[in-house]
């Protein structure tokens, strides 16, 4: 069947809730209205109010509550309505979720999923457009996943729910409904911590994830370079091997992300490439990213986001070096 990314997420939740009775879903507006993006549509009708719960506006309690439920043996899937509202719960991610297994020497674990729509490009209000995957990827003990296709969204979300450790599942809302793709009807997992090669090529390696995959692919095709395109899919743990081996083959690398540049996840990728593929490089690793500013309000946000022309300029710089 053909599905959008948000449809695939909905499908994954239905599939996994039917498979595992320990899975519970909660968050703001997820039950009665089916979520502001309809990601949790139909879950309450099918699985009941005990397992699908509307919560008060309490991000700290939603994430911290998920940790407690997980410690007690449940498989909580909590929704934070927009990733811009996650920072109040940052404390719970850093101080609790990521450390339960470590602190209790494995006696307790926190197999929870926090799902949240993230990123810019939908002309939303302030605090609705952040890309902070670099900050979350910096927390040891927390897994950070970003799908970019309907197929991956379903497989990665099911894997995240089954994962024995806490997973932050960032959903690129800009592409929630912008295209449909093949979606298997059965239950399946896509491995967390494994990048996908979206296009093979020999002249350049382009690494991206989430909503930036589409403009990246468009730019590569428009430029006509024989580039290998890697969709990272997981920020943490990083599939360092796929990246490095590709760069060793192509000799050139470029990273595209919409988050601000300084300290963004691209910086980590450059460091890894320098560590393990420096002598193979024909040019410095190029980054095309958001600027070091907050995502602008809606009238100017498209000036912030990397787009195919900006990515093409980046390709030119790497090739012409």
């Amino acid at each position: 069947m053909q599905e959008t990314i948000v449809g695939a997420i909905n499908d994954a939740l239905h599939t996994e809730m039917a498979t595992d009775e320990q899975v519970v879903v909660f968050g703001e507006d997820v039950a009665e209205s089916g979520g502001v993006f309809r990601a949790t549509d139909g879950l309450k009708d099918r699985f009941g109010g005990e397992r699908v719960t509307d919560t008060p506006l309490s991000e700290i309690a939603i994430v911290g509550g998920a940790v407690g439920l997980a410690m007690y043996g449940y498989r909580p899937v909590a929704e934070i309505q927009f990733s811009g509202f996650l920072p109040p719960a940052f404390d719970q991610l850093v101080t609790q979720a990521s450390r339960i297994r470590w602190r209790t020497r494995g006696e307790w674990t926190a197999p929870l999923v926090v799902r949240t729509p993230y990123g810019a490009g939908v002309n939303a209000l302030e605090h609705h457009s952040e890309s902070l995957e670099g900050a979350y990827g910096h927390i040891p003990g927390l897994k950070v996943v970003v799908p970019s296709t309907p197929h991956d969204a379903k497989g990665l979300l099911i894997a995240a729910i089954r994962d024995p450790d806490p997973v932050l599942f960032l959903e690129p809302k800009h592409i929630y409904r912008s295209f449909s793709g093949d979606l298997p009807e059965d239950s399946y997992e896509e491995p967390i911590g494994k990048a996908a090669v979206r296009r093979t090529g020999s002249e350049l390696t382009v690494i991206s994830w989430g909503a930036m995959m589409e403009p990246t692919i468009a730019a590569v095709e428009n430029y006509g370079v024989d580039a290998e395109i890697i969709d990272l899919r997981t920020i943490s743990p990083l599939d360092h091997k796929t990246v490095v081996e590709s760069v060793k083959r192509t000799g050139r690398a470029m990273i595209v992300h919409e988050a601000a540049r300084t300290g963004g996840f691209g910086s980590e990728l450059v460091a890894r490439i320098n560590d393990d593929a420096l002598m193979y490089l024909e040019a410095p690793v190029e980054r095309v990213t958001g600027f070091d500013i907050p995502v602008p309000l809606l009238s100017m946000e498209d000036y912030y986001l990397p787009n195919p022309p900006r990515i093409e300029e980046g390709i030119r710089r790497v090739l012409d070096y």
Partner: protein
Amino acid sequence: MNNDHKLVASVGADQGRISQENLEIGLFQILAPDGSYNSEAVPSLDDDAFRELYRWMLVERTFDKRMVKLQRRGQIGTFGSGRGQEASIIGSGYALKDDDWLLGMGREAGAMFLQGLPIRDLILFWRGLEDANREMAKHNQMIAISIGSHLPLVTGTAWGMKLADEDNVVTAYFGDGASSTGAVHEAVNFAGVLDVPAVFFCQNNQYAISTPFEKQTNARSVAQRAIGYGINGIRVDGNDVLAVYEAVSEARKAARAGNPTLVESVTYRRDAHTTSDDPGRYRNESEVEQWQERDPIARYESFLRSEGLWSEIDRETLVEEINDEFDAALAAADEYEQRSVDEIFEYLYDELPPYLQRQLVEFKAFLEERPDAYDHIEQRVKG
């Protein structure tokens, strides 16, 4: 000896216990839904002020209606209407002074206009122009989109007023949903400890997007929480403009004396949460109709009639005037053209650091070299 009250021993089953029943709070009301009122409780305002209150409620209603229409035509982004909350917004706003601070959440347009913010600037805000926030700041105003995140700032600003020995106060506008956030609990409690001139004005409009108040908290009211925070609270009929005005005026007075107040204004959002929301999914039409019968503007109109103040008011002419004002504001917003990419780089720091300057220079050069990038940006579907 002075601390003995903290150590009074409990004897008997009821001692030392408290339950929800102990916190049954009534609703402060002057003007009843049927139009009757207690004339002794009517605030002492002159006739012009009574008529102004009416006009301002019409401003709020007209603004909300026009903005929803603009959003439907794609001329602004997502918008949150305050329709149904006119008495709550205007009654509170009218009690504030020009040099008071107002840190809000977006559903209090009329209160912001009352403090002198031009309508144009609020149109620009919902259009997503950074400069709109600067104009608000000039009027001691700010809108926080991240729910409840501004209340600690309210406490801090009020603290500053206390330290500077000023006569003004800070009012926080927030919703019933926000009252569940951690930031709000910390901020109001902190304000109580510091004795600062803050008014915490919660518009309980019954819904946080789809979540009704009874699912937001098991407490019976927001006002009762004041006790836990160590301050005073009041629960006021938010569809009664006179009661809201009176309650916030009193809260303002108390704030200046170092006693912050938590005001819960009980009202109803008749429109969607925002233009992106479909309330048909979570509430039924009969409930909306019930609240329509408590319409704050109609209720106030009957008061003005009883007081003999109505004969001088021509509602149609007023609405026409307000629509003309809105037209002028919209035209001014349409003409607002000082746009360039510089604006999104400016003001992040006092001085643009070199690395950011370099990003700006390179981006401008890129836009010169690649006019197709402009096309790409400008042609992308908005909204």
